[in-house]
């Protein structure tokens, strides 16, 4: 079996499933559109804030910690991305791969402890 055929046999169904998933969502929205009432008025269309008139815009500044966690996520996710192929083949490469990955994890741990020291995973105020 050529790689092109393999690609088609394995991944065409996956693409189709994704397409069907989108179609199911769209179909549900369309079916509902056919049946549901539509009676909007100004008060109904305001943002729900427990019945109190909403003040100001929501799209403002927010806690910087969310950004920092996102940055930490990128670093650790990239680490995981490297761990996956390594986990698959390290036995074929041998002891060298084992050692190399421990070195990699060790370097990341230095960064991890630096982040811990900077208190970025600590969300308490005190």
């Amino acid at each position, binding site marked *: 079996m050529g790689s092109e055929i393999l690609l*088609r046999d*394995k991944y*065409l*169904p*996956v693409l*189709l*499933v*994704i397409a*069907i*998933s*989108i179609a*199911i*969502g*769209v179909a*549900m*929205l369309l*079916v*509902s*559109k056919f*049946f*549901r*009432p*539509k009676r909007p008025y*100004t008060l*109904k*269309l*305001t*943002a*729900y*804030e*427990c019945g109190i008139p*909403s003040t100001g815009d*929501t*799209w403002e500044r927010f806690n910087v*910690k*969310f950004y920092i*966690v*996102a940055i*930490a*996520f990128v670093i*650790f*996710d990239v680490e*995981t991305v490297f*761990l*996956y192929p390594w*986990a*698959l083949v*390290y*036995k074929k490469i041998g*002891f060298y791969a*084992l050692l190399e*990955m*421990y070195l990699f*994890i060790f370097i990341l*741990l230095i960064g*991890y402890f630096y982040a*811990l020291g900077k208190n970025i*995973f*600590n*969300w308490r105020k005190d």
Partner: protein
Amino acid sequence: MDTLYLIAVTIIKTAIYFGLLMLHVAYATYAERKVIGHIQLRLGPMVVGPHGILQPIADIIKLIFKEDIIPSAVDRRIFTIAPLISLTAALSTFAVIPVSEGWVISDINVGILYVLGIAGIGIYGIIFAGWSSNSKYAFLGGLRSAAQMISYEVALAMSLVGVILMAESFNLTEIVNKQAQYPMGMFLLPQIIGYFVFVVAMLAETNRVPFDLPEAETELVAGYFVEYSGIRFSLFYLAEYLAMFCMSALATICFWGGWTVPPFLVEIFPFIGIIPGVVWFLLKVYFHMFLFFWLRGTLPRYRYDQLMSIGWKVLIPLALINIVITSIIKYYS
């Protein structure tokens, strides 16, 4: 011609698979209400049909007939598309999840990467919903949810590295078959740390109790979907339950031996071997679903700082230790 045949077969397979899946999701909502009801010494839904058995169908009809309110201040384009993204991501993960030997829509060789990757896209739906609603509750819920899900996604992905070390494959069928030579025909015992990390992370990934902070009724009303109503709300709801099924299936495949029967059970009851694999698979998935409901009926909610410190200070180091131990043992055996 061959391609057409492939397309036809795939569509039929998907129709059967998704039809049964939707039935499971509908009845998971019913099962959840019943389980939590009985935990709290109530009866749960009892009105529609005997013991409320037709409740999910009544719910679906109700949600279809509800008005779809789109507040005037929202970012309309993103607001309308967010539930679709969530649903599509949750639904397409099932393209590669096998329910028995060969019973799968497409048995690709990077199955585990595909599931994690597509499941990760679901976060976009939540961020988009929280951001575009232009409501403070939705905004805070969306932010919290995004930070929570990305934090626990790292732990989730790392806990599966141990499984890949043992199975030496990304293919989900291969992972199940490799488990035959281990105690009880499962990776559960050798990967017990990995399983623990996976279960905690899967609760957080699906925003379930005790990590349901994005929805925290008492403080955020409903979190990121507070402005949604009718069918769009039910798409989010559907996506949540599909994600729960996806995570349960992944836990079953990676740690509980999938559709295989534990060998010691066959030794005690030899006739048990004739039960088809899909029954075992479903039983194991139901157990994990029950775990979700059980915890929801039992545990209170974590505070946000506790959530963050569990994810980053406990689960990720545990997962790393698991990887190191597993790789050493595997290398010298």
